[in-house]
């Protein structure tokens, strides 16, 4: 319980210990702590950045998907439109072709008719002439009455 030189001894010891702690213990530990703190902060920041990037990519993927779907449906619609157009065109062509064939047939029929009529006319004329000849017997000269005959022929 006496105050004695222990006081001085303790003072000196204390200073030495504090000096040692300040020189050799505190700096490396605090440095390591700071470094780790920075590392953790960096890691967290990187994680956050990664999360944001992921979110961004997801959003982009979603929008891409959406766009692709839209495009696909557009293409399908276009194709449908085109196909119906082709069908219509084909129908039109077919109808036109049919009309043409019918027209051609009708034309050829008409031609046939004309030809037949022509032949008939000739025939009838001949018959008529022959009839007239028979009726008139040689009174009618074919050469003299050619004009008349032709006129009759034309009337038929």
């Amino acid at each position: 319980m006496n105050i004695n030189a222990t006081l001085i001894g303790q003072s000196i010891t204390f200073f030495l210990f504090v000096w040692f702690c300040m020189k050799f213990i505190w700096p490396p530990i605090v440095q390591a702590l700071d470094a780790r703190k920075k590392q953790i902060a960096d890691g967290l920041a990187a994680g956050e950045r990664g999360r944001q990037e992921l979110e961004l990519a997801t959003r982009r993927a979603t929008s891409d998907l959406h766009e692709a779907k839209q495009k696909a449906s557009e293409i399908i619609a276009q194709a449908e439109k085109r196909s119906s157009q082709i069908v219509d065109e084909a129908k039109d062509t077919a109808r036109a072709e049919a009309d043409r064939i019918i027209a051609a047939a009708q034309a050829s029929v008409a031609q046939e008719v004309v030809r037949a009529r022509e032949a008939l006319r000739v025939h009838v004329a001949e018959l008529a002439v022959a009839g007239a000849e028979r009726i008139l017997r040689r009174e009618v000269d074919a050469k003299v009455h050619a004009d008349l005959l032709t006129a009759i022929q034309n009337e038929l």
Partner: protein
Amino acid sequence: MATETLTSSEYIRHHLTNLTYGKLPGGDWGIAQNAEQAKEMGFWAINLDTMGMSILLGVVFLALFSSVARSVRQGVPSGLQNFVELMVEFVENSVRGSFNGRNPLVAPLALTIFTWIFLMNLVDLVPVDWIPHLAIALGVPFFRAVPSTDPNITFGMSLDVFAMVVFYSIKVKGLGGFLGELSFQPFGKIGLPANLFLEGVNLISKPVSLALRLFGNMYAGEMIFILIAIMFGAGIGIGVFGGVLQWAWAVFHVLIVTLQAFIFMTLTIVYLDMAHQEHH
């Protein structure tokens, strides 16, 4: 344990006597054989027990922490490094919380104070008879194991803190500023003597209160342990009751041990903070 050959007061006195080395009455240098001899040695004597324990515990602290400091890794810490880092961060937060200046000394100082005083106080939890009896078995007459129950130890530390407070006050404010703070506050120039008296008391009370608070708490704690230990010699019933009491007091004392170390550290930080602050 109060043995048959010892009375209670002798037992207590034995527990409170330091192992003092100094000049014996005969003129030789040696270890005092009783309290009276130790007293007669005057100032130029040294308490081998408290001084030795204090240095031992300080070395334990420094060895423990410097082993970590040497192999400190940035990666995931393990075991001891974890604990040391916990302490360092705790102290760093305390310093950051109450110290506003910039001084690389303060944080290591606070760490040293906290850990060292904590270890010194912790010896109080070792049953009071173990270390003295071990010492007697080794032929050493006295051994006070708890350094912080020796006012020399607590004053030794608080005077260092006081020296630092004065040093940094003068360094930061200049000698004039420091003396001005002592002389011209709080009553201005007219009340100079009163100022000097008040501020002087204020200044001196810092180391005195630091040292006496720690010493008083630890001394009282040890005293209670010793008184409880006396009960062990008084029959089985009282002995068992004493055992329960000792356990309870030890549990409570863990709090005091930590608290006193923390208070010493925090007040040191605050005093140094005040020394760094300029008053206008």
